[in-house]
């Protein structure tokens, strides 16, 4: 699966546009890590637990988007955009969406 946030793939032509596909994931860290993060707020620095949390979330959301794209018969997702929104304290949603397309001359 080819994923890009460009409109096109160089050297390939888009055969079919298959509309929007999207993936989302909401995750929370356990309370212990929330407390550690609270302390970190005092001194600054990277909140490793949250970096990890959002990274995991983003991977999962991307996986889900790819699954949708496969389901509609696409072989690439173009113009991909990520967005992050806070749902409740300690939980964040990662949302990713793009256009599912069928590219010429790509297997898979």
């Amino acid at each position, binding site marked *: 699966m080819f994923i890009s946030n460009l*409109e*096109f793939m160089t050297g390939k032509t888009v055969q079919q*546009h*298959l*509309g*929007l596909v*999207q993936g*989302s*994931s*909401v*995750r*929370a*860290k*356990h*309370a212990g*890590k*929330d407390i550690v993060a609270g302390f970190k707020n005092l001194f600054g620095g990277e909140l490793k637990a949250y970096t990890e949390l959002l990274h995991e979330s983003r991977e999962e959301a991307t996986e889900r988007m790819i699954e949708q794209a496969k389901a509609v018969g696409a072989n690439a997702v*173009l*113009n*991909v*955009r990520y*967005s992050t*929104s*806070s*749902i*409740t*304290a*300690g*939980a964040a*949603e990662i*949302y990713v*969406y*793009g*256009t599912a*397309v069928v590219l010429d001359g790509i297997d898979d």
Partner: protein
Amino acid sequence: MYELILTVVLVSLGYIFGRRAESKHYKSIIMREKEMNTLPAMASRRPPSDGHYDQALVSGSVVIANDYFKSFVAGLRNLFGGQMRSYETLLDRARREAVLRMKQEAKTLGAEAIFNVKYETSNISGQTRKKMPVIEVHAYGTALTKYGI
């Protein structure tokens, strides 16, 4: 004790009504999505180069709240960490509903397709723990209508 009973009642009411409302909403979403299948929505920014089109900004938005059961489960989940499954359906419903409303607007314009669709998700309940999450999803894009018809 009184508080415990109140919580149990609220959680079970939230579960029963929330689940009923959700399955009803999903049915309606799936039905309307099939109707709107003729009007594709794309994240791509480049409209087809053949022909001339009228452009119009179309949008759809929805504000959705969690039921008590889901908030309760989410609260417990916050303690342990991990996937917050109870919010997944909430957000999924909200996004699909927003797109459907956007498509509805485009359809009244006689559009053929919507390009450059973007989503905006915002939590409008405030950040305090006690408040139930209220989420707005706003979907917008450019509707293209064949010129001169």
